[in-house]
């Protein structure tokens, strides 16, 4: 199992999701959070934005079915902390994200799910979004380890948050087991906190 946790590279066709400050209410409208599992979340991804009165519209997610790499602009995933948003993206098929910037909780959630979210400047993102429009079947590759994105003949340098890179490449993005192994240290920390009485 262990090697599967190492995420050094993800790739596939792309989907541009243009717009700044796209909030998690748009990505996954609240009314679809009334389920006790994440199983069906893909069905609700950008639910309202993807539909007009007469059904599906020309939203990129409707035009780029099967894509694996989402390309977004700045402050993507702002607002609510709902992990339902990246869960929906992942279950729809997104394995990696290229963007100008992310809201912090969204980025943390991506890390928890093993989705690399890399950043680059506005022009590069726009170029890539346009390239996808002209090359819907074109492959985009995110090299997490070397902080690079390749599409067509082009390779660009990107940035990835240090902790996210380390976690993905080393396969330690599921932090529960890691932190669980520090139980005795947790107890030491707790002992120094006047407001916590020994629980166990």
């Amino acid at each position, binding site marked *: 199992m262990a090697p599967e946790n190492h995420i050094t590279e993800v790739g596939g066709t792309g989907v541009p999701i243009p717009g700044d400050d796209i909030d998690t209410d748009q990505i996954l409208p609240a009314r679809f959070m009334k389920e006790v599992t994440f199983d069906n979340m893909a069905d609700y991804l950008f639910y309202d934005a993807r539909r007009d009165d007469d059904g599906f519209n020309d939203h990129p997610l409707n035009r780029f079915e099967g894509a694996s790499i989402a390309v977004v602009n700045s402050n993507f995933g702002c607002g609510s902390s709902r992990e339902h948003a990246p869960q929906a993206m992942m279950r729809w098929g997104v394995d990696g994200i290229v963007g100008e910037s992310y809201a912090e909780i969204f980025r943390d959630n991506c890390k928890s799910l093993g989705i690399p979210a890399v950043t680059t400047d506005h022009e590069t993102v726009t170029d890539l979004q346009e390239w996808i429009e002209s090359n819907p079947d074109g492959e985009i590759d995110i090299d997490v380890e070397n902080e690079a994105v390749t599409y067509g003949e082009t390779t660009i340098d990107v940035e990835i948050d240090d902790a996210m890179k*380390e976690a993905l490449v080393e396969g330690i993005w599921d932090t529960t087991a*890691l932190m669980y192994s520090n139980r005795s240290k947790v107890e030491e920390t707790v002992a120094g906190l006047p407001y916590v009485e020994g629980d166990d």
Partner: protein
Amino acid sequence: MSNGTLYDKVWEKHKVAELPSGQDQLFIGLHLVHEVTSPQAFGMLRERDLDVAYPNQTFATTDHIAPTEAEKRERPLTDEQSEEMLSALERNTSENGITFFGFESGKQGITHVVAPELGLSQPGMTVACGDSHTATHGAFGSIGVGIGTSQIRDVLATGCIAADKQKVRRINVEGELGEGVYAKDIILKIIQDLGVDGGVGHVYEYGGPAIEALDMEGRLAVCNMSIEGGARAGYINPDETTYEYLQGREYVPEGEAFEERKAYWESISSDEDAEYDDVVTVDADDIDPLITWGINPGQVIEITDSVPHPEDFEARTDREAAEQALDHMDIEPGQSMLGYDVDVAFLGTCTNGRVSDFEEAAKILEGNTVADGVRALAVPGSETVREECEARGIDETFINAGFQWRRAGCSMCLAMNDDSLEGDEVCASSSNRNFIGRQGSKEGRTVLMSPAMVAAAAVEGEVADAREYLSDDPAGSASGVGEAAD
């Protein structure tokens, strides 16, 4: 790098270890749980055969899906999905020995209203909840962070999160608020100045005379909307206002134990010579009430100003956002928001669902009635708030004015229960987010404002300046935040 701030001190106290990723393992002293973001996390715990590590530091209530009409709170809930979520929470909390404030407890309500009023949130704590408005608890001088469901699993199983230490930005809020101007206006002003992503990578330390003058409920409103400014956490150093508020609350120690605890609280305040990553000043002197005109909380103006032109913005991103906002809100640049027709007035939420919020709004509603055709909802942030308002007769003022007086929950802030906008209705709202679709209808339009402004909008049937209703009120408090709930 910051040094000697409350953030630095509390972080050090709670740091367990550095993880191989370079992040810190941080102990969470108060974990708040609700029905929407937790069931998947409890499921993951079961899959891994793990127990809840610190059940005594964990408290749950139900808020997002809670019906706010009394008769709809009978079990089983008529909405099957809501019933399933609530039942799952009841099961998960009882199986794991976690205290749950359900409908029958009399203490149910929005997590960020319940924990402060019960004295669960205290200075020098780390607080986490699967909800982005966890920043609220920073009002006491704690570090409150919103987390995703996988991180909830982490906290349940280990009592900890993996976290990056952020930069600390000190925000000095100068000046004095005039009558009819409130904590809500301060935070909207801060977001106007610094932007919706200005706080990314930072925690906000709010201070200065305008902040120090606020009571605890005002401070909670300010810290609550840190996330709307992009800051995952925001806090205010504890002071006598904080300690007075805490004294006598259910989960706060008494007598000698209180004094001992207070010594800890005082020790974690930012030092006078603390170093910040940056310091900014926001001038709140004589600001007018603020309201949003667009589709994010940074698209905000003082009520006396007009809606900006997209070309007024330097950044391309702001221009595009302004154009989209004008289109969605169906408004023109240069127009005043005064007179903008309102269909719904919504008063409540984790931002403004506390006793002083209803008290301030009631001053405006006294002797007035809600305009024809306006649906007006007053939704207390907790059952404790509701009872306190009812004991003071505040509910009567609302009911007499034509408001529906509801039971506690998140309600129309995000419309996960039956309270929702329909079609392109306009809502004058005391909530925190005016995102498209946020209040349950993708065409719905939200105008964020203070509770007093919501009351004035309800009466006029359009956006109005609440101060016109207060000018003859000799009792109006200069600080404009009303009396503390305690």
